[in-house]
């Protein structure tokens, strides 16, 4: 029997929880299902470290936050979405404060802010360097207040159900029992996060396999700007564990093997002495944007100026001059992580770091109201592309984004649910039965099969790192297209040893792999079509930005064999495309 709700939210991270609370507050009569493949507090919002941006201090302005964001995104951001985001941001972060988020404070008791990469004015609110953790737990704990939010923890959503041209629910496997359920609803919100796990070296947790993106893609909804993949410049070698940008916001520096602050060679300004009270200078050197810093690393490696180590080449992030007291107060997690995972205490030694896949600017194409082209389906957070992040997201915008657009998606979905009551249960159950048949036929009852999940996953990783890394080329991308075809083909003979029902994580791994292949396909085809270099998308065969042809969002549609790429104009309201300026007067 189908479960019936007014609204289903898929994904229990920051965006999903914020959406649930928004509906809980404004529409206490609507019954909400929060479906997540993990317990909400395990969601990857938990790992965000540095902070969340919003204009609150007197020296700051909405205009500056907009311009930093738009320039940082190399004019690929929809400016109406950015304006809305910037205007709503302070309210959302104050709301988090009222819900108990332990923001770090100034002596007078007001919320403290810190500088972050690519931001002209310091405007990043932070809770030490565990901001995502505190936001997620505050949201999760607050969500427990609302009786109309019914959680389905550890339910794995597999398919968006479309009936009569409208999204009317999802199918999901209750992992505990292995039973597939139809969850019918008048509107559905996707908040499933990104897909960093299609890459081998990523800050993302194991759960970030692009499930929502792939489900939407298979339902005929376009994925927007998928070629824009953010590499964070400072990940720990080996594990890819994130060392927050806040380390540089607090004054940390990046040096090559000669101890030289190499960023000055990459049009990011000139360094001030670390003892200079004006260091670090906003929007300059170590506080440049992530795309440019990660690209600088690759160039530095080509010059053989990086340091060779057992887990690949690195540069040094040096925060020793901050001193133990400041490190323990403002960057305790950095110290904990480096001590635990590489045996280095940053109070006494520089931290080895290298660029690491961190965030997907692209995602499910939505309007400013979080609507997708499928009526009744909404999306928010990293899985969506609204788009405020353009070709390169600025650090500390994503935590704010999940709040602003999470709440907005919740409200929009509530309005839609109130206006559309009819649900075709019979048809949905039929679709559910078909989906169940597909899962049993292709996985649970399938005999034979020879391809190990881990083998295919490794091969995706290889092809993604080689072809859609920091620098890309036509030939590499074309090879990748063929490889994806091959992997799709081989996926049909996947080996599933576990035929049982209860917590069959081999089955869910296979479903995640299927999602990863689809997302990888959309990334590769989008990257192949964008014949220019912009933000995080750098082509070695098209070195320049081409506003005439490519100041447009790419939309990847699923076809039988590959992605069909279409383009959509970027919304420009007040800020005409210009040069990105770092380390000098704008």
């Amino acid at each position, binding site marked *: 029997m189908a479960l019936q709700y007014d609204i289903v939210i898929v994904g229990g991270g920051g965006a999903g929880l914020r959406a649930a609370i928004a509906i809980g507050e404004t529409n206490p009569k609507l019954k909400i299902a929060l479906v997540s493949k993990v317990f909400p507090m395990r969601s990857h919002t938990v*790992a965000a470290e540095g902070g969340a941006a919003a204009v609150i201090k007197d020296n700051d302005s909405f205009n500056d936050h907009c311009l930093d964001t738009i320039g940082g995104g190399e004019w690929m951001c929809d400016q109406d979405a950015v304006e809305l985001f910037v205007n709503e941001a302070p309210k959302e972060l104050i709301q988090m404060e009222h819900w108990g988020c332990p923001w770090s404070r100034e002596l007078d008791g007001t919320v403290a802010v810190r500088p972050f990469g690519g931001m002209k004015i310091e405007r990043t609110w932070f809770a030490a360097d565990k901001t995502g953790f505190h936001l997620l737990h505050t949201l999760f*704990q607050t969500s427990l207040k609302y009786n109309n939010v019914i959680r389905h923890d550890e339910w794995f959503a597999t398919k968006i159900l479309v009936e009569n041209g409208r999204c009317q629910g999802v199918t999901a496997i209750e992992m505990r029992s292995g039973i597939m359920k139809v969850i019918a609803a008048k509107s559905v919100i996707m908040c499933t996060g990104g897909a960093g796990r299609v890459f081998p070296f990523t800050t993302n947790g194991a759960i970030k396999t692009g499930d929502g993106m792939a489900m939407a893609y298979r339902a005929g909804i376009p994925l927007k700007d998928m070629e824009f993949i953010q590499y964070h410049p400072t990940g720990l070698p080996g594990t890819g564990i994130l060392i927050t940008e806040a380390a540089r916001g607090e004054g940390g520096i990046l040096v090559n093997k000669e101890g030289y602050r190499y960023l000055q060679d990459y049009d990011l300004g000139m360094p001030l002495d670390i003892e200079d009270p004006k260091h670090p200078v906003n929007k300059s050197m170590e506080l440049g944007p992530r795309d440019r810093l990660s690209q600088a690393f690759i160039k530095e490696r080509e010059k053989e100026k990086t340091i060779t180590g057992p887990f690949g080449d690195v540069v040094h992030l040096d925060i020793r001059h901050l001193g133990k007291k400041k490190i323990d107060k403002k960057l305790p997690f950095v110290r904990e992580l480096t*001590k635990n995972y590489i045996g280095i205490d940053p109070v006494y030694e520089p931290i080895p770091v290298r660029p690491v896949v961190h965030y997907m600017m692209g995602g499910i194409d939505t309007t400013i109201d979080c609507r997708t082209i499928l009526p009744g389906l909404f999306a928010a957070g990293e899985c969506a592309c609204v788009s405020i992040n353009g070709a390169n997201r600025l650090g500390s915008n994503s935590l704010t984004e999940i709040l602003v657009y999470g709440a907005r998606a919740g409200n929009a979905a509530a309005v839609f649910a109130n206006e559309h009551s009819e649900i075709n249960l019979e048809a949905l159950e039929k679709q559910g039965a078909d989906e169940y048949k597909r899962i049993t036929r292709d996985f649970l009852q399938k005999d034979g099969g020879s391809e190990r999940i881990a083998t295919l996953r490794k091969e995706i990783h290889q092809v993604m790192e080689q072809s859609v890394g920091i620098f890309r080329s036509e030939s590499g991308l074309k090879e990748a297209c063929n490889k994806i075809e091959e992997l799709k083909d081989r996926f049909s003979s996947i080996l599933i040893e576990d035929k*049982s029902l209860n*917590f069959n994580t081999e089955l869910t791994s296979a479903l995640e792999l299927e999602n990863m292949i689809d997302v990888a396909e959309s990334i590769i085809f989008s990257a192949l079509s964008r014949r220019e270099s912009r933000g995080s998308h750098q082509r070695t065969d098209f070195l320049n930005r081409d506003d005439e042809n490519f100041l447009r969002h790419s939309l990847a549609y699923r076809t039988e064999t590959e992605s069909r790429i279409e383009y959509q104009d970027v919304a420009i309201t007040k800020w005409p495309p210009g040069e990105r300026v770092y380390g000098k007067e704008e």
Partner: protein
Amino acid sequence: MATRRTCLWKRGVKVSETFEMEIFRYYPDKDNEPFIKSYEVPFRDDWVVLDAINYIKDEIDGTLSYRWSCRMGVCGSCGMMVNSVPKLTCSAFLKDYPSRKIRVEPLQGFPVERDLIFDMDDFMNKLTEVKPYLLRKEGEEKPLEEGEYLQSPAELAHYKQYTLCINCMLCYAACPIYALDSNFVGPAAIALAQRYNLDSRDQGRNQRQEVIASHEGIWECTFVGECSVVCPKDVDPAAAIQRAKVSSTLDWFKEKMIPRSKG
């Protein structure tokens, strides 16, 4: 200078032979009894226990089920018993088990659902019961337009430690009281209630007391103290519980000695 791990980064990775890893297995739909299965796994000194378990799942036996995600000690998914001690397996390095005997079991004290996966429903319900959210008295909520509640760094320091709980459940697994009587509200849930009680912005302590000061709450605790020993985030739930005992006792005295103080 603080004690530090041997610096992996500088020394490079040592891979030496293999070792036998014993894993607890349980299929609820096939057998009633769990069993231990051994796997041969490379002994890499840059690996944590979770890496070895992932190796088994990827390369040897796809049927093994367990929870994990962030592999950086913050999502709280991968808690397991490693040689009978509750550990986050993403932070337990193989090289810290030089005897090369490692047995992994699900966190103890909980019903096991499958292999290394235990039932967490009980904790989720208890968490809801202790009202772990900011409560203000009616009419004392500050409108959003008026900005944040002011809170000095000193006031923040009063409760900060108790905000660091990642709900990994190691403290419950370490608590013999919880194993003997699962009605006990337990360390993490009480520490979280205490987190809000000590927050200068909160006014909801009275609403939490009913559950916290009950027999199943703080008074069930007999101060074994192991919850704080195994806590990977130094939350010190044992101290949170003992502090709650002191303030509840003071409440009682106030009520008995100064009857009017209640009103």
